[in-house]
């Protein structure tokens, strides 16, 4: 047995509590700021207790936004972010599952070529091909469209590999039995593989939803119309120190609105999130 020294454990608890507070402080600070008025925010030190402007700050953010972000309401930005995150998550899962299915359960001449092409996408993040990808988007007429915001981000090597790994563990007998019973490839996919993949799909959904919600460079590149932006890009535009009229209360509220949905997803689906994260990245 390992020694169970009470003091050692108490120290561990103490240090963990300190760490939790330190990690949480930036969030607490911003939340508190989002309940104060702009002029209170501009005259530090900020009170560390909630103020009374919570309705004013969030109301302003959700209806008007700020002029530096094109006066678009954050309700619209939240909607755009939600559409983007959902479309990317669902698109990635569908596309990756289908291609993993093809690579694992069929033999065709270009199989390895496809596999390596998917693998190579790992080495070509948007950040290394900013300008030419922008040119492609422009020439396809996808600027300021939901398709432009989402479709190019739906290819996924990691999701494909996760499904591939999982499909390789499906016993051969299951496939043989299904074939003996007269099930075709698509029937097998729908009635056997899909139900078996439920947990993997859910775990992947959490991780890809976060991925979609937190995109920044991509929406910055492919949207010029403020009404097509995401809440994160809008937040960045609202943080404007050179403009004396920046509504800081609304900015703080926007920051909270921008982080609340993905944080809620992680906290609410922690088990699936940890599974999805550890398994896709390994």
């Amino acid at each position: 047995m390992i020694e169970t020294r009470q003091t050692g454990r108490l120290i561990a608890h103490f240090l963990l509590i300190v760490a939790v507070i330190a990690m949480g402080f930036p969030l607490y600070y911003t939340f508190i700021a989002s309940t104060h008025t702009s002029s209170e925010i501009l005259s530090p030190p900020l009170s560390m207790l909630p103020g009374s402007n919570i309705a004013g700050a969030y109301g302003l953010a959700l209806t008007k936004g700020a002029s530096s972000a094109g006066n678009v309401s954050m309700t619209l930005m939240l909607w755009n972010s939600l559409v983007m995150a959902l479309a990317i998550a669902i698109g990635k899962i569908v596309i990756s599952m289908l291609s993993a299915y093809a690579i694992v359960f069929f033999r065709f001449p270009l199989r390895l070529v496809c596999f390596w092409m998917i693998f190579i996408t790992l080495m070509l993040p948007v950040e290394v091909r900013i300008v030419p990808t922008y040119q492609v988007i422009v020439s396809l007429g996808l600027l300021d469209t939901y398709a432009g915001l989402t479709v190019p981000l739906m290819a996924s090597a990691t999701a494909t590999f996760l499904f591939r790994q999982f499909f390789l563990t499906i016993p051969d007998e299951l496939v043989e039995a299904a074939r003996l019973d007269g099930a075709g490839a698509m029937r097998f996919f729908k009635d056997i593989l899909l139900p078996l993949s439920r947990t993997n799909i859910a775990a992947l959904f959490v991780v890809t939803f976060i991925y979609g919600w937190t995109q920044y460079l991509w929406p910055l590149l492919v949207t010029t119309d403020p009404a097509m932006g995401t809440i994160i890009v809008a937040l960045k535009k609202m943080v404007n120190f050179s403009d004396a009229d920046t509504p800081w209360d609304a900015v703080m509220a926007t920051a909270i609105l921008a982080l609340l949905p993905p944080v809620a997803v992680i906290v609410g689906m922690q088990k699936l999130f940890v599974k999805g994260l550890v398994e896709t990245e390994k």
Partner: protein
Amino acid sequence: MERRAIFPNKKLPYLLVAPQMAITLVFFFWPAGQAVRQSLYQEDPFGLSVTFAGLANFHRIFADPNYLYSLQVTFIFAIGVTVMTMIPALLLAALIDRVVKGKLVYQTLLIWPYALAPAVAGILWLFMFNPGMGTLAMLIRSTGYNWDPSLNGTQAMLLVMVSAAWKQVSYNFLFFLAGMQAIPKSFIEAAAIDGAGPMRRFWTIIMPLISPTTFFLLVVNMVYAFFDTFGLIHAVTAGGPGKDTETLVLKVYNDGYVNLNMGGSSAQSVVLMVIVISLTIFQFKYVERRVHYS
């Protein structure tokens, strides 16, 4: 690894991979090819004439003090972020591995920053530390220290490093914890019976056994610092003051997308591609992974 039992369809698999292939070709391979092609050409800013320039664009960027400075900034930033991320994450994982009660609660309260977009993470820190309204900035200034990250490059670098590390700790923590929990309890117990205290056990048993995780995280954190922190730096300092926090990705964005210098920015893109490709190959070759490729 291959399956024995498969389906005989000949055309269906092509249909199944078609969506992935279409996106891959149009949005990954084509632009990447264009970046390589453009890096070998010289184009005037209006796009009126294009001339083949060979490796001239590459010679130019590597002779450009601004580019070399950005390279240096990127490396300092990446090393700083990696260190500031991994040490706290390792400590937190070791601590949580020791406690019995409240594990899940601590875990929840430590991993939520993963959900933040890097830009949002940076902006939260900017709220606290900008001299105009940040309460913490005010506290620092009240000690007489001249804190102003919008004028002082070192302070700006520190601010983006700390906020980038803050967001990334959660990810590292989860992997360290998973690594530690995979160590058989009997190893730790045997060492305890032999009289090894907690510190000794940490250094002689836990650390060596999680070294594959450490190595994996090292590469992941480098990739994160190089590429994923674009939003954070763009939102907090925009590369300034001067060019003191302008990392390579920021520079490609500024030169190519903002200033429309195609040849130069494509050459920079190609250099970045070489960096990602090396990091990826390095990771697949030397880091133990669950995925094995047939």
